[in-house]
């Protein structure tokens, strides 16, 4: 199911654990599966000196967290901001279709941690990123899967791309 890189990061996750006195914390919950991720960063001279994670989630979520922390470590804040779901998924040599959404968890938590760090510096309170879980359905048209954005056949209660179940309102 998972690539070797995913399995490697899953089996030997890097940078696990809570951080004492972090400069920024990103906490996020995945509306699709209910999984959770915390990212902690320590920043010095605009560079992410240390990063760690805690994850309650699937194998992909754990591998994503681990890979993400490796990718962000040592990067400048500006560089780290450019880390996307896609780049994490690519670094993991791909994820199964129905697990693509798990990579959202990682990049979003990192961005939240950076935002939290910047907000703190600016003296603001922490904000939570809004997450959409809306399934838009235009009569006549093919609907789009809320998870993978693929076309959904009407009459199916599954996305034929990612296999995800689609709610009753479909």
């Amino acid at each position, binding site marked *: *199911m998972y690539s070797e890189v995913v399995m490697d990061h899953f089996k030997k996750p890097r940078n696990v654990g809570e951080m004492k006195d972090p400069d920024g914390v990103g906490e996020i919950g995945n509306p699709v599966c209910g999984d959770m991720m915390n990212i902690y960063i320590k920043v010095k001279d605009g560079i992410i000196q240390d990063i760690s994670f805690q994850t309650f989630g699937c194998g992909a979520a754990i591998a994503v967290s681990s890979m993400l922390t490796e990718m962000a470590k040592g990067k400048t804040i500006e560089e780290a901001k450019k880390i996307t779901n896609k780049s994490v998924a690519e670094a993991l040599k791909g994820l199964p279709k129905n697990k693509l959404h798990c990579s959202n968890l990682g990049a979003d938590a990192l961005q939240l941690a950076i935002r939290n760090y910047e907000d703190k510096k600016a003296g603001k309170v922490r904000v939570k990123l809004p997450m959409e879980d809306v399934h838009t359905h235009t009569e006549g048209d*093919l609907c789009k899967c809320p998870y993978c954005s693929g*076309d959904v*056949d*009407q*009459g*199916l209660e*599954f996305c*034929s791309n990612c296999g995800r*179940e689609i709610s009753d309102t479909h």
Partner: protein
Amino acid sequence: MKVTNLDYISANPLLPEVRDAMIEAIKKDYGNPSSAHSLGDEARNILEKARERVALLINSPSPDDIVFTSSGTESINHAIKGVAFANAKKGKHIITSNIEHNSVLKSLRRLTKSGYRVTSVEVDKNGLVDPANVHKAITDQTILISIMHGNNEIGTIQPIKELCCIAREKNVLFHSDCVTSVGIMPVDVQELGIDLISFSANQFNGPSGVGGLYIRKGVNLWPLIDGGGQENGRRAGTENLIGIIGMGVAAEFAHQEMQSRLSHMKKLKNRLITGLKEKIDDIIINGHPELSLPNLVSLSVKYIEGESIVLMLDEEKIIVSTRSACASGSLRASHVLLSIDLDYADAQGTLVITFGKATTEDEIDRFINVLKNVVATLRDMSPLYKKSNT
């Protein structure tokens, strides 16, 4: 004496390679392809491998367009009822032909109980549908045309490509029961431009009780069987993996050996028809002289009845059939034969002779000789034969 099987359409013998693959699969005892652990991965890989092989056989743009089912019949029910229910808002009119297999006819008959209207177009004496008639039958309520490829009783092959063209032009979905053609002759879904085709593994030396349905991307239809997310949510239920593996291997060989099998069967068919005409009086070869399945001959023997011919041949270890096995419980004359204007008694005296890769010329010759004697014996008993000679 070895049994001479000339009833391939009822039960194709398994290809030795198919047999071996299935036995190996049974010994391996795969897990559940849906499981999220290593046993599941292994099973999923082998399932998808089979899907790729089947996709190749019909030139499907992607393996994902193939749904595995439990028979040609299930595929047909899925296609017809699935399209009908999913498109009911657009309309409730369906077009078919007079010579379809029972699984098409009865699926449609079932739908008429839910308010669907069915137009059935006639065929000519050779069993051919006239595309102009189909064109004429289309209304703005029409959601589906379902016309078979090769007929299982008389062998006639319909002009599917032309029919698909008409359907597409009128924005109507097209399904074809290709049970007798897929794996026997080239069927290329992209070249045909078709929306849905149904097929069955056993027709090309795969196991019985395994079928396939090709669904062009973007075609709207409801699953027939709802439940878990198997088959991309299109057909629920734990897979018959052993059977599907067998289908995959059968598909691969059918694809590879298509041309050599075709020329072998054409030779046998010629020999059979020539021999029959030479040796037995008062017979009719039904179906179209050219547009016909290469592995099937429909033979009406005048003045005698089919089941007694079958039984007498059986005593001589020759297996033929009066019609497709699934209809053999039915005693009425075949609707297909009556549709090509065969006389009622002649329809009752009709044999379907089907053969395949492993059939030999000797078997064909032996069949003709034994049949000659059987026909003579039964004609001696027949009130019709005497009448016709006085």
